[in-house]
Every structure is written in structure tokens, then in C-alpha cells.
């Protein structure tokens, strides 16, 4: 599995995906400064989906271009590991975005001379909504990717990314109360179940693929 993750990371490093991610991040960073606006910004919410979408679509495009489905399974890995690595990569990217946003938030708090505590370095309600939207988006997109392939899915992916960003913003805007710990926990458990269920479907599709 680590060999597959290293492969994905090597592709991302060599392509322009990272530059675009950093550029996009620096463009939306000003919206992070407004702490009240922070959890409800369309930009901030879309940022997660867009960055993961960007890295995922670079990976799948390069896999498609170089026919990696024709040689990666020939290495000493199982098809289940190949699919698992893709799910882990996407989840790690999401986690990295959360961490990065928190780091920016801490820097802003320091610059403003405010106290830093566990409650103000992250908007946990927003994070719970994002985890839910993330698991729904990739829970649907990844099995479709293994079923239909990159070519048929690429337009659908960007459309779904925009919709997911909008949905998560709307959920934040309408004031869905996700800040209660039990609600957050429930959202995380539901997300994990969706993601795992999606993974088993993808493994099945990929194992039986031709």
C-alpha cells in the first residue's frame, strides 16, 4: 500500500497539480481572515472539494494517459490494495487540507494577538459538514470512476465538485447546528460508513473489471 501511495505522491509532485493547489490556496486565504465568515464561506467550503478534486483528477488523468491499469496490477499488489490506496490518498488529502486551514487560522490568531485554544483553531461544525460532503462526493465518484473510467467521468466530476461545494456552503448558511459533539460524532460515523461501503463497491468493480 505504501508503494502505491508513494507512486501517487510522485505523480502529484511531478505535475502542476501542487502549484495549482498552492495558487488556489493563496487566492482564497484572505477569506480565512474573517473568523465569523470563515465557517460559512462558499470559497472556504469549496476549497476542500476543489483541492481534492484537482489532485484526484491529475492522478486519474495521468493513470489514463500512461495506461497504468495495464501495468500497476502486474506489480506485487492486490487489486484491493490498489483501490484502498486511492481511497487513502483522497482521505489524506482531505486531512491535509483541514490541517493546513487550521495552521493558517493559528497564524492569523497569533498575528491578531488572540488566544489560541482547541476550540478556536478549527470550526468543528464546519469540519463535520465537510467530512459528510466529502464522503458523499467521493463515495459516489470513486465507484463511478472504477466503473466508467476517467474519460466518461471527468465532466461529471467537476460538476459534482461545484454542487458539493455549494451544498456544504448552504448547509453552513442555513445554520445547521453541527457544533454539538454528538451530532458531530454521528456525522463522522455516517461518513465513515458511506466511505467504507463505497470502497467495497469499488473493489468489487475493479476486481471484476477487464
Amino acid at each position: 500500500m505504501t508503494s502505491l501511495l508513494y507512486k501517487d505522491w510522485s505523480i502529484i509532485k511531478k505535475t502542476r497539480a501542487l502549484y495549482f493547489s498552492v495558487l488556489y490556496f493563496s487566492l482564497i486565504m484572505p477569506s480565512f481572515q474573517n473568523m465569523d465568515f470563515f465557517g460559512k464561506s462558499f470559497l472556504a467550503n469549496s476549497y476542500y472539494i476543489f483541492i481534492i478534486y484537482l489532485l484526484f483528477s491529475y492522478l486519474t488523468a495521468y493513470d489514463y494517459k500512461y495506461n497504468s491499469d495495464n501495468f500497476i496490477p502486474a506489480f506485487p499488489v492486490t487489486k484491493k490494495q490498489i483501490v484502498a490506496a486511492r481511497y487513502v490518498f483522497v482521505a489524506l488529502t482531505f486531512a491535509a487540507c483541514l490541517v493546513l486551514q487550521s495552521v493558517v487560522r493559528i497564524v492569523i490568531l497569533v498575528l491578531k494577538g488572540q488566544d489560541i485554544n482547541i476550540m478556536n483553531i478549527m470550526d468543528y461544525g464546519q469540519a463535520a459538514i465537510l467530512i459528510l460532503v466529502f464522503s458523499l462526493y467521493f463515495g459516489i465518484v470513486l465507484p463511478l470512476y472504477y466503473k466508467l473510467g476517467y474519460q466518461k467521468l471527468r465532466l461529471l466530476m467537476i460538476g459534482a465538485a461545484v454542487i458539493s461545494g455549494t451544498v456544504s456552503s448552504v448547509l453552513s448558511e442555513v445554520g445547521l447546528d453541527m457544533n454539538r459533539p454528538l451530532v458531530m460524532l454521528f456525522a463522522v460515523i455516517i461518513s465513515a460508513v458511506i466511505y467504507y461501503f463505497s470502497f467495497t463497491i469499488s473493489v468489487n468493480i475493479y476486481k471484476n473489471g477487464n
Partner: protein
Amino acid sequence: MNKVLEVIGLEKHYDNFTLDKVSFSIEPGYIMGYIGPNGAGKTTTINAILDIIKPDKGKIMLFGKELNGNACEIKQRIGFIIGENAFYEFMNAKEMAGIISRFYKRWDWGLFNKYMREFELDPGKKIESYSRGMKVKFALACALSHHAELFILDEPTSGLDPVFRSELMEIFQQIISDGEKTILFSTHITSDLDNIADYITFIYQGRIVFSRDKDSIMTEFALVKGRKDQRDMVLGSGKIKGMLESDVGFSALTDDRNWFFRNAPGSLVIERATLEDIMVHFVRGNKKYDKLAI
């Protein structure tokens, strides 16, 4: 003797193609040529052996173990070259080898660097800037750098000039010279196998036509050539596998050369058949005759 590879009753069905009960085996220390025209089923078989596709039926045994259930352990012992591919070509050779090395427990950088030098490849150059022959050599260097025991090569010489192909054949012979390594080499360029293959497996339209040692093929198969008026007599022997006709005569393939030496009239010409002759006569020469012994 233990078999390195045993393919038993392999079946794979697609909408427009079926791999039908494919069976053959290889013993250690030999080169097997897997021949057949384009679309015969060579790549489908190899993809099944490499666990890239899932067969509908049949069993693949490698190093005495079934592939299904032991794929990771088995693939540690296999080196491969697949078709036109040389992996992610936008990377340089060293970066790509860095990725590949992480898949293999016994990857040996010393060996990789040695082969890169031997094959005169610059590891700092992007793979896409390599020629087709250099890409094959790079894939071979990778396959050789993790102490593989079985090499599965799918059309490695396709698109290469004769000089490069002959150089590769020498390398393949060096690989098996220790008697422990084995090569399964698919190709439609049968002349590549004339000097190096020990066994030949011929597949056509998804079915194995024969799988046997090359020497027996060379001694038993022959081309029988004659005039047009001798055609029916030769077909009537029941020993013809394929026949091609021209305006002046015919050329027929038999797998019973001795029968023709004993029984055929002196006016018939009996010649040694090359692998290419055998393939061409099977493929092009069995379409319109109902008396062929197939």
C-alpha cells in the same frame, strides 16, 4: 520436473473474443515463445498470468502455487515487459525506478545501476525521450533488478529494428544462461524465436494450436510444394494443416514430414518450415479447404 508456470483450462469471454481452454506449461531454465497473429489471445493470456485481468475459468499455477490467493508473493518473483508501455514516461528513469523499487522486497539498486550502464541508458533522462528500444531496455533493467525468476515479456520486440532485436535476443539468452531463470516471450515476429526459443506455444483465435518443444516442431513440420494438379492428392492425404495457393501451384503445411518423404511422388518438393511458415499457413491457409487435418 517442477513447472515454473502452468496454465490450465484458462477461459475469458469478451463480446467479440473468447480465450478458450488455454493450457500450457514451462519448466525452469527455458525460453518459451508464445506466438500467434494479432488478436489471437496472447496479451489476454499474459494479462491473466500477471493478474491484470480475472479469468472466467481455469487455473494459473506459478512456482507450484495457485495465482489466485498468492498473487503478491508470486509477483515478487516475476519480471515483466508489457507491450508499448514503459510506465510513467514523463518521469526520468531513476524516478520511475524509485517507484518500482518500492514494490519489490528484493530490489537491488546496485544491479539496477549495473544494467543501466550495460544498456547504455542515462537514468537522468525522461523516459519519453528514450527510443522504443531504450524503453524496452529500461523495462528489462527494472525486471532484472529484483532477482526475478520468471520473465514475462509481451511483444518486447514489436516496433524495433532488426539490429536492436538481435541485441535483445542476446540479452535474453544471457538471462537464462544460469539455468534458473525462465522466459515466456510473446511475439508475432516469429523470426525472433528461431534461434533462442526452446518451446513454442501457438495460439490462434483464442485456442492453443500446439505447445511443444521447438526441435520437434522443426523436425516434424514441413512445407509440401507442388503443381496445381497435385493439390487434391496432397489434401487427400489427411496430413495437411494449411494450404496456400498461387497461379502456378500450392504450398501446404504438414506436421508429418516423414509420411511425405515415404509416400509422396518425387515431383513434390518437401522443405523445412520456419515458425513464420507454420503461423502463416495455419492462419491464412485453413479458410477454404474442407479436407485439412486440423
